[in-house]
């Protein structure tokens, strides 16, 4: 097990360096950057001679490999450079943005899971057929209404109307609830669909019929057998949900004026603030790697039939609809 984890960590470092390098090359292949844009802005009053001074000051006249080496060695020392637009160290900007986004996506994920679970359970176990049918419509509705519309409606009714929470993020928990709910509603749809389907499929399995016939209650059967079988497809979906959360957080952060990774990325890309964009690439790659690692480590806990590659048994690992990592 330790060998496996170490191997994964080494792989992770290589992936991060590769991501950083590719991003560096691509970004520097694009025309312009924050400094050149600043010089060229009409009305900046910077003459071409003065422009050269600025370019030299920021080291942009050095050959590309020299710039690459400086920034890469900086990364290994924990220095990700400084934002050209606002002078803040990139680590500071990321350090402020990541916790905010993690709080938002964490709570949104929880809400999404709760809503998804509620919908999935209700669509299978609710007493009335009209309730079961109408609940099955919910995922479709939630995933087709854009997050920003939901967000703006929340703000209009609950913030400006009922003053239940501040419309603009002020760091308090109440400011977190509405954006997390808006985002959670959006990501609840795939989990609701998958869970609902998995529950329905498992319920029709023969062993469930046997348990019920033996006198077990529906709740008992659900707890013991069905839930575990559904957790696996949900885990598989985790990667998709993670992606949706990150994508959705960009819009949600803009609508609710939250200082998060999404806003940071949008601003950095708009202004071609390359050091910040590189920092975001590193964070995104790291996030992807960590999630994948967690998912791969958790799989065997849920389904003992799955084995980690390199373990003592010589059988090839059997992964059910999961990550392609082997």
């Amino acid at each position: 097990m330790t060998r496996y984890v170490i191997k994964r960590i080494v792989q992770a470092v290589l992936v991060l360096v590769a991501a950083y390098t590719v991003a560096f090359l691509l970004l520097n292949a694009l025309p312009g950057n924050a400094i050149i844009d600043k010089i060229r802005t009409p009305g900046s009053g910077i003459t071409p001679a003065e422009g050269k001074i600025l370019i030299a000051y920021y080291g942009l006249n050095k050959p590309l490999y020299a710039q690459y080496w400086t920034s890469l060695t900086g990364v290994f020392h924990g220095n990700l450079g400084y934002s050209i637009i606002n002078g803040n160290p990139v680590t500071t900007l990321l350090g402020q943005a990541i916790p905010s986004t993690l709080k938002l996506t964490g709570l949104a994920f929880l809400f999404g899971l709760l809503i998804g679970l509620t919908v999935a359970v209700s669509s299978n176990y609710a007493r009335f057929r009209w309730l079961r049918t109408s609940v099955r419509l919910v995922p479709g509705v939630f995933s087709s209404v854009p997050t920003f519309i939901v967000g703006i409606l929340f703000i209009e009714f609950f913030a400006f109307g009922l003053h239940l929470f501040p419309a603009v993020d002020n760091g308090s928990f109440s400011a977190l609830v509405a954006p997390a709910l808006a985002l959670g509603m959006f990501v609840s749809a795939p989990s609701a669909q998958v869970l609902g389907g998995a529950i329905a499929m498992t319920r029709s399995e023969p062993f469930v019929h046997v348990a019920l016939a033996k006198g077990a209650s529906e709740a008992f059967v659900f707890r013991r057998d069905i839930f575990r079988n559904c957790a696996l497809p949900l885990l598989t979906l985790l990667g998709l949900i993670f992606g949706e959360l990150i994508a959705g957080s960009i819009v949600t952060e803009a609508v609710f004026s939250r200082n998060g990774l999404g806003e940071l990325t949008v601003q950095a890309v708009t202004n071609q603030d390359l050091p910040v964009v590189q920092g975001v690439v590193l964070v995104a790659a790291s996030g992807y790697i960590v999630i994948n690692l967690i998912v791969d480590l958790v799989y065997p806990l849920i389904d003992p039939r799955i084995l980690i590659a390199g373990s003592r048994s010589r059988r090839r690992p059997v992964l059910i609809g999961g990550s392609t990592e082997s």
Partner: protein
Amino acid sequence: MTSQMNRRNFLMYGGSTGMALLIAACGGSSSSSSSRSASNAAATSSGAAGGTPVYGGTLTFYDPSDYISWDMLDGGNASIWSNSNVSPQLFDRLTWQDPATGKILPWIAKSWTVSPDSLQYTFEIQPGVTFSDGTPLDAAAIKANYDLRGYGDAKLGVVQDEFWISYAKTVVHSPTSFTVYLAQPDAGWLQATSVYRAGSLVALSTLKKNAAERGLAANAIGSGPFVYESGNGVTGIVLKRRDDYNWAPPALAHQGKAYLEKIVYQTVPEENVLVGSLASGEAQIVRGVQPYDEATVTGQGAALFSAGVQGQTNALQFSLVPEIVQDVRVRQALIAATNRQEIHTSVLSPHWQIADGVLVHGTPYFVDGSSYLTYDPAKAGSLLEAAGWTLGSSGYREKGGQVLSFPGYVAPFYPVSQAVFELLQQQWKKVGVQLVLKTLSLTEYENDVAAHVPFQQGQTSRADPDALYAAWDSKAGNGTYTVDPALDKLTVNVARQTDPTKRQAAVQAVSDYLLGNAYEIPLYDETQVFGLSSKLHGYRIEATERSVLYDAWLSA
């Protein structure tokens, strides 16, 4: 039976609760329709009535843009709207320019004399002024500030400020007196000492730092009535009052410390939230109310405040490099084909003013150029015919197989630009001119728009006609992308003439030349519209419509 009863009750109670919530939510904000708006170009403050000023309180100011570097030595950074509505609270300047009259009045400088050749300015400054870090704001500190602006410093990444090109040196006589020497007469130099982007006085400890550190909000150390308290300086910044402040411009309404105890600035990118926050009371000032949102703001009991941003009018400025615009008749035809009135009524609002020339109304030495700007589609047509452009089968004019077509680059930094270009497209089509809109991102725009583009939308703001020199002189902004010696002579004259009558004539000459030769098509007066809560009093702006919150106070 029981389940049916439960279902009916559920629907009844659930439905009525839902309706109640809906009604409460919709009617939540105050619907008083008192709408005060100060759209007069000469208006510089609002909310004067309201009783005795009250000390204390926290003002919340929402801005649609992020804040960038706080380095006041960088003119481009310092002039961005978001930052420049904060910096007047943090930094003082040598002189104060009256926004209504344009006159330069005392501030940190108590008095000054100008030598007969206009090359030496000797200042006496107030004693006892300090930066918020305790260091003195004396003649030596001012010299350090001005030397950096006048010479630049490659090692610190500072370039010479474009307002300071005539600067030669500063000589300190005593802690409270010094003389500035100019290399040539510069009629606008004294005004530059009053401008937030060129004249803000920064603490010496900050001046020594490198560019990245100068950009941090915590290092924005000035002598102003407020100081940095907290915030990342990117999505927001919180200022707190400096209680020992005692050197406000004599022209302002009070002296001593400011009324407000705290100012909270925050970036709010979403327009609906910006406008709604004013009505709900979450914010007392919002910047950048668009024409289509104005009715919402006033309908909800808040006030609109707008003033023309002094300097150049927002105009389409021609590059003389592309062949298609080198014929003056084509350019004049485009002016005649542009209906400024229609732009004003369709796209803008009464809080904006129609452009009447190359300068915004209220700019010192303003000249009226409206006689050059009459809307006359028939005249446009005949000018184009005379230039050889005849109506073709496509509906547009053609000459030698080429269609009279222009690319219209929508400027990403003017929110109304898209709507204005769309209207121009319709207006110009009536005289057979094709305008093809190009909507690019900010970085694409700055990379693509250059000398080969027939015209671009732009303006330079400055409460001094030197804005014309900065925009058009071939050694400065070089608006035509070519060298026009006749224009250079006229613009240099505007910059050099220190005698007011002669300067007025010089500005008139530049205006006549620019409009007579159709070097630009004025569209509208550059304007910024603020939304103000009815609880806010004593709000004022300085000469280029940046917020000054020193006299501002909040009623309960």
